């Protein structure tokens, strides 16, 4: 392609660029405001200051004094990582089983499991709480993750991606004398790693951002998560917005980091899911 041609193509793309820039601005502006607000004090924020201020250090110190920031961060990390690993293992096993060993009975079971997605969370909250509490799992990582480690959506995602898994590999492995479980761990998991990455991003974000359920099962301050920390900052008769936004910032960084790090695999993994 000649240089002139290239610039023509770019010129035709100008409306696309404009649209993308506007949408990116809309997407990013509230987050940008969150970051600048974390560096301002309450008075400046309520007066609508958009740019960076000088109160960042002060807000940070106040946040440390007001709330157990590191403890909450640690809790959130432990719960989210545990949930991500277990959810990925259980749902990928199921997706593998549903797709590569498919028969009529399994298809019907799959359709039935999808119904679980449509139950409003509010309806099952009390029976679920009763169960978790009877099992003695309140304030524990199990109470947090158990209801979320097998979700119809994740099973669906792994099942659809499994269509890309070449049947020839399974046959070859069987001839080699590998067990079915061995095939899953030695063949399936490495080949499907981008699906795992995509599923990990989604599960981690959901676990990290969960609020209502953790609020219900984590009755002890020591088990507090980041969204709960923010809610605590936003409570009370008076609210310090600078400190609050500093908390929001800390709560947002990990999910964004996870997305940045796994971005490429995420896109690839999702791609697989719709083939």
């Amino acid at each position, binding site marked *: 392609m000649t240089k002139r041609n290239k610039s023509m193509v770019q010129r035709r793309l100008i409306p696309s660029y404009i649209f993308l820039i506007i949408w990116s601005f809309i997407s990013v502006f509230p987050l940008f405001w969150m970051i600048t607000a974390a560096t301002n004090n309450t008075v400046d924020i309520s007066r609508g200051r958009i740019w960076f201020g000088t109160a960042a250090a002060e807000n940070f110190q106040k946040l440390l004094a007001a709330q157990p920031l590191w403890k909450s961060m640690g809790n959130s990390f432990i719960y989210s990582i545990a949930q991500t690993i277990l959810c990925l293992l259980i749902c990928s096993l199921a997706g593998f089983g549903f797709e590569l060993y498919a028969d009529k009975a399994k298809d019907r079971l799959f359709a039935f499991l999808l119904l679980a997605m449509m139950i409003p969370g509010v309806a099952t909250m009390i029976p679920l709480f009763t169960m978790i509490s009877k099992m003695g799992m309140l304030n524990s990582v199990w109470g947090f993750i158990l209801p979320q480690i097998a979700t119809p959506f994740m099973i669906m995602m792994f099942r659809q991606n499994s269509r890309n898994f070449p049947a020839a590999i399974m046959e070859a492995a069987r001839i080699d004398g590998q067990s079915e479980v061995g095939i899953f761990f030695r063949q399936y998991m*490495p080949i499907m790693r981008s699906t795992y990455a995509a599923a990990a991003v989604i599960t981690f974000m959901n676990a990290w951002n969960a609020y209502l359920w953790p609020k219900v099962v984590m*009755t002890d301050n020591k088990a507090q998560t980041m969204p709960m920390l923010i809610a605590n900052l936003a409570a009370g008769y*008076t609210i310090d917005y600078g400190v609050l936004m500093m908390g929001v910032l800390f709560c947002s960084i990990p999910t964004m980091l996870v997305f940045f790090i796994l971005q490429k695999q995420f896109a690839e993994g999702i791609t697989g899911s719709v083939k």
Partner: protein
Amino acid sequence: MKRKLFAVLTAGIMAASLLAPMTAFAEAEGADVASEDENTLSVYAWDANFNIPALEAAEKDYQENVNPDFKLNIITQSGSSDVENAVTLAGQSGDYSNLPDIVLFQDHYFQQFYVSYPEAWQDLSAADIDWSDFGAEKLSFSTYEDVHYGVPVDNGTAIMAYRTDLLEEAGYSMDDMRGCTWDKFIEVGKAVYEKTGKYLLCMDGSGNDLPYMMLQAEGESQFTDGEPTFASNEKYIQIIKDIVIMVENNILYLGNNWSEYTDQAIVGDMVAGVLNGNWIIPTMEQAAENSGKWEITSLPTLEGGAGFASNGGSSLYITGNCTKPELAADFLAKTFGAGSTATYDAALLNGGVITCSAKAGASEVYQEGIDFFNGQPIYSDIVAMGANVPVVEQSDYHYACRNYVGTAIQNLIQAGEPTDESVQAALQDAQDQLAFEMAG
């Protein structure tokens, strides 16, 4: 090769993750809050700047004067609703073992929670507490069929605060406001907004407490013998009409949520008057540039004469899960229940919590003039006002009622030009809705 490594790694991580949490967390963090050592009590509370300092004060008091080994494990909640939800969940599941020994509980909620979950509470009658030291109105919340369940903490007595400088600018003084009628208040409000651009009254429109306080100042309730009767109460119709008129004339500013009411209207210096439970004072004091310009008095009434009301306020209750009821009762009886100066003075100084114990209110700290309020000794004034608050019928459905009436007010504001008929119709709607809910 790479593949194999990946597989080994993931399998390893998964195996580890399956085992690790089971051993590490199930024991370490699953500790039952009620099973701490014999000198420790756990308590739920929700405001780090208000009631938590009060509890810390009581802990210190009890340590210094009774039991040096005593410890209070204060578990912070993000709001009073968290405590209510915790009791609900415990009650629904029939498993109270996860409640702390003591909860701080909103006064208006206790009655309905007692009816719904009687096992969640413990009788306090045996505790060594001189109940006559507290106002009858306050105790009417925490008793059920003459049995005491709660020890009062803060005092919900309503204050009507005015900016004296702005009143003056509009040609009025505090003397005009003391014991005035709502008609007079509206007249002053119009002048204040015209001259200064500030509202003479403000409230959170989504949790509107004005109707309740204004009606209590008339000595009446929205309920009669457990049934809502407000739609046929002429005083109430007049009150709601006045509220809508005040909004229309820029006398009353209704924020959309709590934050707009406190952070923008009050701290943001948009108002010349504040009416609410006295716990609103720390919020007002955040606007430090207006120090010395405020004074407080009682509420206006429809016919004139000082009106007294209360709103908010909470008490401490021993839960059904408490395994050390003697310690809990003794702790409450010797601190908050005894009008202990050590507890209440520190609670006032560190958290702005005002007592409803007459004995604690007599302490020196309470008699001091407060600079922010132009040297007025507001704390003793508030304790004195608290004694005059009329006891009115309480209902399980206080907050449900507030919501339906709040909706009616919003609708009347949207429609504009309220008449007795339109107000009556809107209130009838609200009352029907409430009756519908109560029938469930």
